[in-house]
């Protein structure tokens, strides 16, 4: 061992953490579309297998020109908003009851777990018998589908509220209602909102599934028709609309989170 030799300490840290980069994301996206378009043009990707992005875009423009886009979109959004709103409202309500009262929990939580696992789309024929072939059954499918994950997210959130905060509330003589309103609900809100994210995507999935049965208008109906005609360009256009719907819902929920959870980092 030479004692007059000096070496810098080798660096062994760093890594294993992520920095978000919008440029990289855009580049990947643009490259993918360009590759796809280019591949379709030179015949590397057969038009039968996958239409070129420009064709799908043309189908989309056609949809706008014919005025059908708004008809489909309006029908779909109406179902989605009705079903999701009532599903999540009821879900938050029932979730709070399960979170707050032992008897309700004992009675309902096994039931919720049991029904949660059933794909709601399998129940669609029943819903059609109960609520009719029209809007009722479609809204009901979305309502039921979004209700259960919201219940589970809500009472999970209530369970995770810091007990020491509740004890603090009691020690200051706060009423039970005040403790629920000012401590438990705000404490459970992050979990409830992430439940909303999940239920929004579930809502869109169920929307399409429900619209594939007996709907004249709706993005799902449009996709189903395109599929049965093997009009793959329209199919891609329809699927892109769904994707955009999902993105905008996530964006809205993100804004809501920023507003209500501004106390977090």
């Amino acid at each position, binding site marked *: 061992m030479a004692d007059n030799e000096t070496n810098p300490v080798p660096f062994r840290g760093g890594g294993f953490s992520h920095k978000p980069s919008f440029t990289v994301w855009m580049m990947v996206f643009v490259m993918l579309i360009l590759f796809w378009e280019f591949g379709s043009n030179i015949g590397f990707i057969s038009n039968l297998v996958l239409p070129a992005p420009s064709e799908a875009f043309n189908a989309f423009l056609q949809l706008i020109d014919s005025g059908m886009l708004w008809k489909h979109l309006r029908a779909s959004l109406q179902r989605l908003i009705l079903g999701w709103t009532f599903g999540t409202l009821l879900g938050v309500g029932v979730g709070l009851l399960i979170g707050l009262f032992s008897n309700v929990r004992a009675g309902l939580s096994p039931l919720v777990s049991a029904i949660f696992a059933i794909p709601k789309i399998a129940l669609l024929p029943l819903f059609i018998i109960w609520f009719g072939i029209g809007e009722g059954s479609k809204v009901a499918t979305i309502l039921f589908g979004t209700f259960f994950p919201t219940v589970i997210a809500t009472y999970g959130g209530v369970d995770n509220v810091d007990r*020491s*905060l509740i004890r603090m*509330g009691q*020690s*200051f003589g706060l*009423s039970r209602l005040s403790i629920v309103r000012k401590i438990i609900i705000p404490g459970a809100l992050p979990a409830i909102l992430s439940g909303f994210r999940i239920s929004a995507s579930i809502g869109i999935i169920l929307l399409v599934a429900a619209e594939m049965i007996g709907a004249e208008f709706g993005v799902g109906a449009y996709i189903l028709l395109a599929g049965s005609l093997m009009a793959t360009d329209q199919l891609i256009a329809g699927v892109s609309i769904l994707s955009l719907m999902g993105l905008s819902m996530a964006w809205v929920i993100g804004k809501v989170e920023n507003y209500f959870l501004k*106390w*977090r980092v």
Partner: protein
Amino acid sequence: MTGIPQSLPSSFFHFFIFMDLQLNNITHAYGDMTVLDDIDLTVSGGEIICIVGPSGCGKSTLLRLMGGLERPDSGEVLLLGEPPKSSLNPLTYIFQDFALLPWRTVEGNISLALEDHPISKQESRKIIDDVLSRTHLSDFKKAWPRQLSGGMKQRVAIARALAVRPAVMLMDEPLSALDSQTRELLMDDLIDLWMRESFTAIYVTHNLQEAVRFGHRIVVLSRRPGRVREIVKIDKPLSERGADNEELDEVQHYLWRLMRDDARAADRELLNG
């Protein structure tokens, strides 16, 4: 012991109203495990009682029993005298983990303690401004808890406790989550607060230095099941208890000698055993 003021403060903005707290034969168990055994203690108005003892001796349980957050298996906790009307919450806690709502600002956290009482907006704003200035927090009114250091968070919790004009302050290791410098500063603040207007407090700690600095009487509990082993009285007034005080060091050593074997035994005990 320092003189305990006899007269009850009467003006509305007096923060502390004296009341005696009496514990008679308190015994408490969690399942088969007795944590407290036959505790008798009387706390008189304006006095600070420190409770020390080895870990797991039931110090914090005792404090929870005193404030009515838990019910003793046997024995009783009594408040002597009618709680004064101006006290919104006669028995008020200060917790080790501060217990601030992260979704409320400093101001909002203090207002939480006032909202359930019939107080006008103006009045509650006045109380909030007053307690914030007493705890040197006026500039941080709109800050979120996450922006504050541990010491500042505990100051907010102290301000919140002052806002409800307690008769007895129940302090559960209030400085234990803080680093030693902050602890020193906050201890000075607490002593200042008591000097300006004396209050009744029960101060649970495992830190003997804090106990001899702040307590008029120090209750030493034995290891589980907790019994009162000895009550040590310190006559020196709080104002004269600066650092490097030989007399206090001696008391501290005495307390440690009392606790040492118990602490060692408690340390070697199996949890939930």
